[in-house]
């Protein structure tokens, strides 16, 4: 569906207003969108192919900085310099967790809805994959893995939409509580139900597929798989935030009543945001199930529901990259807490880090980056307002 159609579907009656990045919206309709690619959105001239191409180069020149290329090169080259442990346990896990946290960043940072049920959505995707595909349990239907992935994604997205439909009835902190309650209800359901979710055991030794002879669970292939989806998710979210839907969503975050008065269907936008976040979380969930090789009630327990929030907050919710920064820090802490405070006290460490971040740096680690850059800029005497790249959020 194109962006313009989106807007029409979302806001019957608001189509005439050129509000909410309407400038972008009107032109966005000219090209196929809603596609996870880093395509430009707020362009001046588009339509003719030549102008489009020129705009493309200009957009790239304007948007892409040396540091972006550096990061891209670094993540691509990473598995060739890192040990398999660092590639798989740290890199790939951080990317998969980051994708789930990204769905929360999208919902919370840009939609103003802090949902603790994102890990539940990921867990539903994981469970569904384990049920449809092959695992060590008899419940598994042993269908082809491609079909299982598609079914898992669809079911998880539907569940995410339902969760959203439920929780948009509430606002602010109520949303946290209701999504937490939903998440824990699913945890107990998975734990107590043996016919479908196999109870406490869950699904062990879930098969990871092999494509063209390449075992996907091997460190390097899995790293690139996770990287592909993480990048796709990142660019998709970055694109969506500048598309009419994303702009309207941010408008709703800042002032739902005004948006409603402008003719935007606030509820529909919010539920749609849950659906979009659900797709991201579901992809992350399938990656996690491949990574772990198992899915059990423990993977959707309260601890993990909160961990996703910790990851998103650690990194910072003002920019999609924050989710991945947070995930890297979280995974590093998780793996090396043993050396710092001993294996047993990981929760104390992560809780303390989280508390420090929340108390002293509300924007997470990205806040440090922004502050450091501003400081450097003033030191270099080039004025403090050197093109803030992040939208002011919250």
């Amino acid at each position, binding site marked *: 569906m194109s962006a313009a159609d989106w807007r029409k579907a979302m806001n019957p009656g608001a189509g005439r207003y050129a509000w909410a990045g309407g400038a972008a919206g009107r032109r966005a309709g000219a090209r196929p969108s809603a596609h996870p690619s880093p395509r430009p959105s707020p362009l001046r001239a588009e339509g003719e192919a030549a102008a489009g191409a020129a705009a493309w180069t200009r957009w790239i020149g304007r948007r892409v900085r040396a540091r972006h290329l550096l990061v891209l090169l670094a993540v691509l080259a990473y598995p060739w310099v890192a040990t398999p442990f660092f590639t798989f346990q740290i890199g790939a896990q951080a990317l998969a967790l980051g994708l789930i946290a990204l769905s929360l960043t999208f919902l919370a940072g840009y939609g103003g809805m*802090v949902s603790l049920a994102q890990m539940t959505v990921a867990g539903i995707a994981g469970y569904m994959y384990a049920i449809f595909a092959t695992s060590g349990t008899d419940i598994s239907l042993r269908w082809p893995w491609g079909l299982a992935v598609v079914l898992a994604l669809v079911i998880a997205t539907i569940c995410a939409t339902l969760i959203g439909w*439920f929780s948009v*009835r*509430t*606002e*602010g*902190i*109520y949303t*946290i*509580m*209701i999504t*937490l*309650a*939903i998440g*824990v*209800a699913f945890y*107990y*359901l998975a734990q*107590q*139900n*043996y016919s479908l979710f196999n109870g406490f055991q869950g699904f062990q030794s879930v098969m990871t597929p092999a494509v063209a002879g390449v075992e996907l669970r091997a460190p390097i292939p899995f790293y690139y798989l996770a990287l592909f989806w993480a990048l796709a998710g990142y660019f998709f979210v970055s694109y969506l935030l500048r598309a009419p839907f994303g702009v309207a969503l941010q408008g709703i975050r800042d002032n739902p009543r005004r948006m409603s008065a402008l003719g935007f269907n606030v509820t529909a936008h919010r539920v749609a945001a849950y659906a979009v976040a659900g797709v991201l979380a579901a992809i992350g969930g399938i990656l996690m199930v491949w990574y772990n090789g198992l899915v059990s009630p423990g993977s959707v327990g*309260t601890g993990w529901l*909160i961990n996703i*929030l910790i990851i998103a*907050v650690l990194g910072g919710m003002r920019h999609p990259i924050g989710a991945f920064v947070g995930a890297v820090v979280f995974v590093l802490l998780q793996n090396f807490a043993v050396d710092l405070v001993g294996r*047993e*006290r990981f*929760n*104390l460490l*992560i*809780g*303390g880090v*989280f*508390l420090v971040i*929340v*108390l002293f740096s*509300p924007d997470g680690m990205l806040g440090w980056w922004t502050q450091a850059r501003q400081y450097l800029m003033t030191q270099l005497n080039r004025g403090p307002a050197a093109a803030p790249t992040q939208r002011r959020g*919250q």
Partner: protein
Amino acid sequence: MSRFWLWFWGLIIGVPAAAFVVWGLADNPKLFLTTGMNGLTLAALYFLVASGFTLVFGLMRNVNLAHGSLYLLGAYVGYVVGDRTGSWLMAVAAGFASAALFGLVLQVAVFRFMHGEDLRQTLVTIGLSIMMADILLWIFGGEIYQFDPPRAIYGRTLLPIVEVYPTYRLVLLAMSAAIGVLLWWFLNRTRVGMMIRAGVDDRAMLSAAGVNVQFVFAITFAIGAGLAGFAGVVGGTALSIAPGEDTRYQLASLVVVIVGGMGSVVGAAIGAILIGVAEQFGLAYAPTYSVVFTFVIMALVLAFRPQGILGRRA
């Protein structure tokens, strides 16, 4: 909601519920009534925890997700004191006092500085609860602790149909009812209670009227936290204390106040009864899906009355 819909939904929910009651009584009255009693005991415990939670929220708009940790803190401190002094009543008092003190420190040292920042307060309490759970686990380990209540309230009581029932649970029920009445009296008949109620309605106006709002906040927080600690000892005696109980009671009080309505003590009582009874009947009659009942109640309330049964729109 119009009268028609009230009747409609009353019938939709009431008829199957009544049918279940009749069937349960006819089928196995002992099981049915015992389950009902267990449900009420659990409800009493939930009410003790949730009433503090809802009071704090109603006044300060502060979702204290460390409330469950206060429960566990009170329980452990109570256990240590009870172990040293050999007095159960001292344990109860210590549970209340320690949690109240901790709540007071929390309010004065942390929440005072982030007034009106809902999300940040919530995140801070989440961080605190993670740390507290781990510190308590560090100190007390993973063992399960049990209290020794005085002999007078321990043992069994003979009841009609149910036959024998633990005396302590009956005492718990009575205590919870007494606390409820006391809370009602405190909120409705004392000067501080009046201030708290006024603060729930309009904080700014209360401050303008010359009341030291900070003081009212501190009192409320101390009472709310103290009730959680009290429930820790009292509930720990009825069941047991172990790591993980904090999350359990945190979630229970969340669900209870979502159902009953945020900020309403009476709502917390109604919610606690609904959830406690539903949970126990679910466990007794449909063990696999007992959680689902709780969830269905919450979903129904959210669908038809998003602010909770006795809640007011924020």
